[in-house]
């Protein structure tokens, strides 16, 4: 039986200098700007919308949340604060879905939502 999903306030959020990395064993393809991810280990297929697809593309283990937010600002002409919040949320969701390489404890997962996000 699955645990009930945590609310967004309860989910640990990645710090802005965190470098998310896709799991090497998940397959994905990009079609018409959207990414389809196949997670055979968990038996799930995910379809990402264009914004989430851009974030997924940037989850290379090198780019920080801040870096990824910068790409979002350019692509969607949104302000940096909104972009950072969106990237943080999507990365947290990708973690929850088990699609990213698990983060080490040393890489801070900031539990304070308001304090962790800066312009």
């Amino acid at each position, binding site marked *: 039986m699955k645990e009930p999903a945590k609310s967004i306030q309860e989910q640990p959020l990645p710090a802005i200098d965190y470098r998310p990395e896709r799991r090497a064993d998940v397959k994905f*393809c990009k*079609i*018409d700007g*959207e*990414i*389809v991810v*196949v997670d*055979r280990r968990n038996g799930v*297929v995910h*379809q990402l919308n264009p914004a989430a697809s851009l974030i997924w593309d940037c989850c290379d283990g090198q780019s920080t949340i801040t870096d990824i937010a910068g790409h979002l600002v350019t692509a969607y002409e949104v302000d940096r604060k909104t972009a950072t919040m969106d990237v943080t949320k999507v990365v947290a969701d990708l973690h929850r879905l088990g699609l990213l390489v698990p983060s080490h404890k040393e890489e801070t997962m900031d539990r304070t939502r308001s304090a962790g996000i800066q312009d």
Partner: protein
Amino acid sequence: MPVPVLVKTVDPIFYEITLRIFGCTIRVHCSDEYASSLLLANYGSCQGRCKDPQLTYFVRRARHSSGFIITTNGRNTLFARDDGDLLFLLEKDLTINLQMQQPRLYFLHAAALEFNGRAILLIAPSGGGKSTTTWGLLHEGFGYMSDELAPICLDTMKVYAYPHAICLKSNPPLPYYLPHQIVRTSSTIHIPATAVPSRLQLDPIRLFGVVFLERGYGQSANIASVSKAEAVARLYANTLNALAHQGEGLDGSEKIARKSICLRLTFDSLPEACALIRKTLGHLREGPRKCSAL
């Protein structure tokens, strides 16, 4: 006192059925008259000739029950508790073996029909109406290819036919009456391919479109384009031999989505759904490739 001797009896073979499916040759030896008639009704349109079949099945009655024993290539043995189970288990084993014999084909859990010389796939979860919708569309001018297995050659994008009997779990709604040639088992209704009201499409033909079926209880039938990404996800979820293909099968789903029209049909009334599918596909076959009008 005479010593009892165990005498091994050999079942006399009453019937031998040779099938040719996707280029694979299969022979079924059946020592039970009822079982042989059941198999002939189910696979009669798949019959072919060969000297040395690639797959061999033996079917006989179980000695101490009302079930059947199925033996594959003299090795694996399955016990079917009744006639419905016999067809189910044989079909399941055959499907696995066909995938192993033809790994180059991309096997989809889908119904396949012919429309104006091109193949249309229907995809839905089990119990979602694939076979019933297939039966309905056969009354609307579509040709019959398969009701649940649609292998595709990814190089040519041709869909191969598997015209075994249409298997329904319950009586179809009006006005799509069942023919008198049906076979009822413990759990299913089988309509032999020879009894369909339309033509059989036996040669492989190029894929035109994929329709994902969804039940919408109480709703009017509605058909709309799906994004290519959604089509890829849905196709992949219905791929049977994904790991036999490049990119763990994801490449195949992507190619099929890119090269075909992908639609989602939500319906409650089967006649309404069939009419909408025919009208939509007719429009698309004549007009632009993109479904911008939907």
